[in-house]
C-alpha cells in the first residue's frame, strides 16, 4: 500500500428535490478518502447514507457538486473524449441487482463484446477470447450466446463481474454485489471476487450494508452516516474496537450466526431512525441518536481526526477543538 490509486477530496454531491426550488438532498457532503492500490476499501452504512451515490460519483455516473476525484493523481471530474474513455477503461462497477444490470435484449456475448469494441481492443478471435474469459469466472461456454433470462441470478452476476473486468481495469466499485442473491450463492460470488482480485491485482471499493460481508472482504472500512464519513480505518481494528458511537451501534445491531455468542454479548439497541438528508441536524449529524451527546455536538460539526496512524474518527469524544 504505497501511493493512493484513488483520492477523493471534499466531495459534495447534492441533488435537487423534485417539486421544490431550494431544497437539496445532501447525498454526499464533504467526503475525503484514499483508496490504495491492491486493497479493498469497504463502505458501510444504512440506506440513504450516500454510499451508493459516493460509489457512482467516483465513476462519474453522477456529477459532483464540488470537490476533486483524483485517479492516479489526475482529476477526472472534467475529463472529456479520449481521456474520459481511458478513465472508463480503468474504473468499472458491479451493480447490486444482476437481473437489471444486464440488457435483457442482448446476448451475453453481445454484452461482453461491447466494451471490447468500444475501446477498440484488437483480438484475433473474439469468440475464443470470450470463452476463456467466461471460464475464468466459472461460466461454461454454452452460456455465451444465451440471453440473461436464461441464466440464474448467480450466473448473471458472474457475467456482470466479467463485463467489469474484461478491460482489465485497476479499480472496481462493487455496489452490494451479493445482496440480491441467496446466501449459498453469495459465498460463491464473494470467493470469486477475492480470486479475481488476487489474479488481476484489482483494487476494490466494496459498498454494502451487510457489515459481516464487508468485514470479510475489506482491508479498511469507512462508515458513512447521512452523507458523511464518521469513521475510517483498518477493518480488524474497527470491528474489534469501534470508536464512533454510530459504529458501535451499527456493529451491535448485526445478528451474529452463533446463538450462544449473540445472546450473551452486550448490546446497544439503536435508538431512533436516521433523519432526512434534506434537512440534516446541525452540528454532528448523529447527535439526536447518540447516547453521549454533549453541547458541542449540537452546534459544531466534528472534524475527521486521526486517532492512530491511518485511523480517523469524526466525533467530539476523540477530537479536541
Amino acid at each position, binding site marked *: 500500500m504505497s501511493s493512493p490509486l484513488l483520492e477523493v477530496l471534499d466531495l459534495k454531491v447534492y441533488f435537487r428535490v423534485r417539486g421544490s426550488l431550494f431544497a437539496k438532498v445532501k447525498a454526499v457532503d464533504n467526503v475525503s478518502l484514499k483508496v490504495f492500490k491492491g486493497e479493498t476499501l469497504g463502505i458501510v452504512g444504512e440506506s440513504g447514507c450516500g454510499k451508493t451515490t459516493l460509489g457512482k460519483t467516483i465513476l462519474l455516473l453522477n456529477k459532483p457538486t464540488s470537490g476533486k476525484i483524483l485517479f492516479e493523481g489526475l482529476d477526472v471530474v472534467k475529463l472529456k473524449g479520449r481521456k474520459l474513455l481511458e478513465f472508463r477503461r480503468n474504473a468499472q462497477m458491479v451493480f447490486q441487482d444482476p437481473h437489471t444490470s444486464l440488457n435483457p435484449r442482448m446476448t451475453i456475448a453481445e454484452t461482453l463484446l461491447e466494451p471490447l469494441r468500444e475501446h477498440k481492443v484488437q483480438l484475433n478471435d473474439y469468440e475464443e477470447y470470450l470463452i476463456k474469459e467466461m471460464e475464468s469466472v466459472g461460466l461454461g461456454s454454452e452460456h455465451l450466446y444465451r440471453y440473461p433470462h436464461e441464466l440464474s441470478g448467480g450466473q448473471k452476476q458472474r457475467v456482470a463481474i466479467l463485463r467489469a473486468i474484461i478491460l482489465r481495469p485497476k479499480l472496481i466499485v462493487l455496489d452490494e454485489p451479493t445482496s440480491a442473491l441467496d446466501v449459498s450463492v453469495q459465498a460463491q460470488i464473494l470467493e470469486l471476487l477475492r480470486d479475481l482480485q488476487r489474479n488481476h491485482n484489482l483494487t476494490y471499493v466494496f459498498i454494502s450494508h451487510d457489515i459481516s460481508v464487508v468485514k470479510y472482504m475489506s482491508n479498511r472500512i469507512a462508515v458513512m452516516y447521512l452523507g458523511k464519513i464518521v469513521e475510517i480505518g483498518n477493518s480488524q481494528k474497527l470491528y474489534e474496537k469501534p470508536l464512533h458511537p454510530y459504529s458501535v451501534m451499527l*456493529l451491535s445491531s448485526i445478528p451474529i450466526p*452463533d446463538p450462544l455468542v449473540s445472546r450473551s454479548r452486550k448490546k446497544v439497541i439503536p435508538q431512533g431512525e436516521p433523519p432526512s438528508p434534506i434537512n440534516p441536524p446541525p452540528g454532528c449529524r448523529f447527535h439526536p441518536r447518540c447516547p453521549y451527546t454533549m453541547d458541542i455536538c449540537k452546534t459544531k460539526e466534528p472534524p475527521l481526526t486521526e486517532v492512530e496512524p491511518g485511523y480517523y474518527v469524526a466525533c467530539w469524544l476523540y477530537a479536541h477543538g
Partner: protein
Amino acid sequence: MAESLQDGQVLKVRDLEVKFYTYAGVVNAVSRISFEVYEGEVVALVGETGCGKTVTTRALTRLIEHPGRIENGSALFKRRNNEVVDLLKVPEEVIRDIRGNEIAYVFQDPTSALDPLYTVGTHIVETVTNHRKVKAKEVLRDAIRLLKEVVIPSPELRVKNYPHELSGGMRQRAVIATSLSNSPKLLIADEPTTNLDVTIQAQILELLKNLQAKYKMSLILITHNLGIVAEISDRVYIMYAGKIVEEALTTDLYYKPLHPYTQLLLRSVPNPLKRIEKLESIPGVVPSLINPPPGCRFYPRCPYATDVCRREEPSMIEVEPRHRVACWLYLKR
C-alpha cells in the same frame, strides 16, 4: 391421524402439501411437510428464496390464492376457547374469524401490506371491528395504545397518518400493531426485517421478542438470515426445495448441524467475530419445483451423495432427542 394435540402444543401440521397449477406447469411448492408449534415459543422457518416457507405459513389459514391449491394434510390448532380445529377443514366463516384474530401475520414488505389510501388508524380499527363488537371510540383509544406499545413516537398523531407519511421502520411497527390488535395466540412473521436497515432490524427484532413475551403468544419467524435465527428463535426448521430437512433446538442446530445442507449453509455465512480464511459455498442451483428430482432434493448439490439418495427420498428420523433430520447418512446407521 388422531385429532389431538399434545400438551402445550398450539399448532400441529401434518403432511401439508401445496401445489400451484401455473401456466408453466404444476409447481410442488410444499411437499408433505410436518411441524408443530408450542405455546409461547419462537420457531424459525429457515430457507432460501423459493423453498416454500412463505407458502407453508400462508396455507395455515388458507390464504393460498389461485392458481395454488392445498392438496393434502391437516393443521390442528388450539383456539382461544381450547377447542381444537383442523384449520384446513373448518368452514370459511371460522377460518375468517381465526385470521387476524387468533393467527395474525406480519408480512415482509410493510409498504405494500398497508393500503396506501387508508390511515394507520383505520387499519387497526377495521381489524378489531371485523372480529369483535366494540365502540369505535374505544377501538381508537386501543389503536393509540397499540401504537405506543410498538414504540411509535406521538401515537395520537400517528394514528391519523397515511402509510406513505411514515418511514419504513415505522410502517413495519404499524403493521405489527395492526396484527397484534386482537392479541393473537400465534403470530407469523414473514421476513419482517428483510427490507429494513440493520439498526432498524435490531429494533424490530427486539420489539418482537418483547411483545412475544408480553402477549405470551407463539411466534413463527420466517427468515433466510441465520444471524436472526440465532438471535431470537428457540427451535428451527430448515427447509429446502419444498421440504423440511432438519429440525432442532437452535443451539443444537448451530453446534451440531446434521444435514449436509445445513452444514454447508452455516459455513457459507461470514461470521464477523471469527477470522475466516475462506467461505464454503454450495455448488449448483436449487432444483426446479415443477419436476423435482425423485430422491433427496439436495442430492445434486450434496458432497456426500450416494446412489440411494438419487433413488429414494429419505424420511425424517430422530437422531438425538428433539433433533430430527431427513438424510440417508443417518438412516443407514
